[in-house]
């Protein structure tokens, strides 16, 4: 990542956190008939307390005036980052090619719903079963992503709209599958039967269900980073993303590569849901789209589509979410406040023209003065 992009990201996060503090301050502002200064004093005191919880709770907690390591919060933080790392990878891949397939949400939902069938009924073989289940989910994701991918690369139909539509179809189909074939009749609400014991992921800590999904997610990040930066195929994809006409005229089969990008991205996104279900819940529990596909877009943006930065971005996002949730448990501040921070970060990070225009102008000015200095009077011709 270029240096000024790091600055920009840091500034965006800083502004968002500042905004978060203001929002907390507004929420805790007391009512009643005190003088303004008194009220402000109380508000600042409470806001500082809440902000501290917000910032620290995923790793630290207060017990009898002392700050100690918060294992539960830490595990929750890591667990929550798993599905969004994976969707972040899927989205960053597709965005690298300058395509806007925003269907990760549907891919992960349908992938999870169909793979749930396998997680329940596939014969119990240790290690093999979860692999089969995850591969099935990834196959479904790839297939689902192939539809907009095919329509785009073959006939140039807008992948934004088709993938968005397919998210809904996937949602309804997934719910239908769970409801009709896999429902647990003994459960009070609509959930699937429990997964077979050998299907669930290895636990790193069984008390708070820290599952090995994080290892899978990190391995995937590394693998995708390797593919994107170290292989010819990855180079092709990046070239296409930079300038697809140039890529086309330099002999790359752009349509074929586009289609492959859709397939791979769908395959990655497809696993995001089932990995969380296998690791944490042990059954299919969603009644509506969990929204991880949209989170993937935020993460890809923050990580500048670089797979190696995706886990960092995802850990940051899940950190502030867990912090906000914990704060919400102890205070009245709605954890949804975080989405305001998220929106701010996206807007500030993606508004690259602002800073880069200034940068561009500086470069041009410098170039012009050098040119004039070299060419002397000839530059005016």
């Amino acid at each position, binding site marked *: 990542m270029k240096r000024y992009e790091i600055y920009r990201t840091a500034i965006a996060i800083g502004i968002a956190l500042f905004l978060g503090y203001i*929002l907390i301050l*507004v*929420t805790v502002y007391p009512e009643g008939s005190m003088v303004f200064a008194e009220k402000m004093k109380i508000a600042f005191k409470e806001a500082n307390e809440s902000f501290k919880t917000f910032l620290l709770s995923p790793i630290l907690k207060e017990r009898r005036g002392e700050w100690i390591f918060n294992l539960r919060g830490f595990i929750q933080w890591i667990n929550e980052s798993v599905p969004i790392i994976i969707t972040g990878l899927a989205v960053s891949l597709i965005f690298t090619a300058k395509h*806007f397939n*925003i269907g990760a949400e549907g891919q992960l939902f349908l992938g999870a719903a169909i793979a749930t069938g396998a997680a329940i009924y596939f014969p119990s073989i240790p290690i093999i079963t979860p692999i089969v289940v995850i591969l099935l989910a990834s196959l479904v994701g790839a297939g689902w992503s192939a*539809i907009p991918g095919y*329509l785009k690369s*073959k*006939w*140039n*139909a*807008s992948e*934004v*709209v*088709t993938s*968005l*539509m*397919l998210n*809904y*179809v996937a949602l*309804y*189909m997934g*719910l*239908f599958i769970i*409801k*009709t074939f896999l429902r647990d009749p003994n459960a009070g609400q609509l959930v699937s039967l429990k997964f077979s014991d050998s299907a669930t992921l290895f636990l790193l800590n069984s008390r708070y269900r820290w599952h090995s999904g994080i290892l899978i997610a990190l391995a995937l990040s590394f693998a995708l980073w390797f593919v994107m930066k170290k292989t010819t195929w990855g180079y092709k994809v990046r070239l296409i993303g930079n300038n697809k006409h140039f890529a086309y005229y330099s002999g790359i089969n752009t349509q074929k590569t586009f289609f492959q990008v859709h397939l791979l991205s769908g395959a990655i996104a497809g696993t995001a849901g089932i990995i969380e279900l296998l690791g944490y819940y042990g059954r299919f529990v969603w009644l509506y789209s969990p929204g991880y596909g*949209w989170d993937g*877009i*935020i993460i890809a*943006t923050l990580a500048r589509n670089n797979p190696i930065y995706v886990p960092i971005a995802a850990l940051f996002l899940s950190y502030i979410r867990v912090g906000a949730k914990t704060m919400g448990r102890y205070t*009245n501040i*709605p954890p*949804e*406040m*975080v*989405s*305001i921070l*998220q*929106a*701010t970060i*996206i*807007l500030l990070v*993606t*508004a*690259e*023209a*602002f800073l880069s225009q200034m940068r561009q102008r500086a470069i041009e000015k410098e170039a012009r003065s050098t040119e004039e200095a070299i060419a002397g009077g000839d530059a005016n011709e």
Partner: protein
Amino acid sequence: MNNVLSSILSWEFVAAGIRVTTPILLAALGALVAELAGTPNIALEGTMLFSAFVGVIISGFTHSLWLSVIGALITGIIMSTILAYFSLKLKTDIIMAAIALNIFASGGTIYALYLLTGDKGSSASLKSLVLPSIDIPILKDIPILGDILSGHHILTYIAIILVFLIQYMLYRTPLGLRIRSVGESPDAARSVGISVFKTQYTALIISGMLASLGGIFLSMGYVEWFARDMTSGRGFIALAAQALGGTSAYGVALGSLLFGFSEALSFSLQFLNIPYEVTQSMPFIITVGALAFYAWNKAKNKKNRDI
């Protein structure tokens, strides 16, 4: 079977279909204007949600319908202005900016709801008003016809009028011509002296205001309160309706009707044991099919011309 037929052939069914169609249609017209200007407005969802919220809050605190409608429209304008500023001036990808706005609206409304009413789920504690339904004099007394045409919500009539107005604006006025030419080829438009920024900004504003109307129909027409995420994807459905309906307001109206009636149908068809998931996903499948067909046709024609 008879149950189903009689429920589908009833006026209640038609009325329900029209009711469900109204917010989708309003937002879909907004999607159309933005799409034709070459600035697809994915932020319709967030715009609807925020306007629905502002409408209820203003009507709850001021008990003035006018103020709440105006407030909602201003909300739409503000959302569009942010979208336009970031995408047109700061060169953010418009899809990313819109996604940010949707995320902002989803959390921001819940946060503001809590601040203003102390409730994180809905504004039911607030006494807010509803926009009226309208009986059309004389017409309402005619049997059958009166049942179909009269007694709808005021925004339903406004939506119908807007279909014609938007179609006229797009295809019969200089503004419409500018919008379409900017959407077709910004460089060509610029070369004949059209301000691309102004035109696209105007289109986004119109689009945002239409989405606002759709939003307040949800919170002040359907029901009289605001609930978290109450748009539940209608802004995206509006995009689908627009994609299905193509470039004319009439087509978009038909597309919206398809979504509205399939939702109404899904309740009736439950008598037949057709799961609602199937009926609900039909319009989306049709949309993808129609888009595919349209793109295929275009690609085929282009190929023929090339030869």
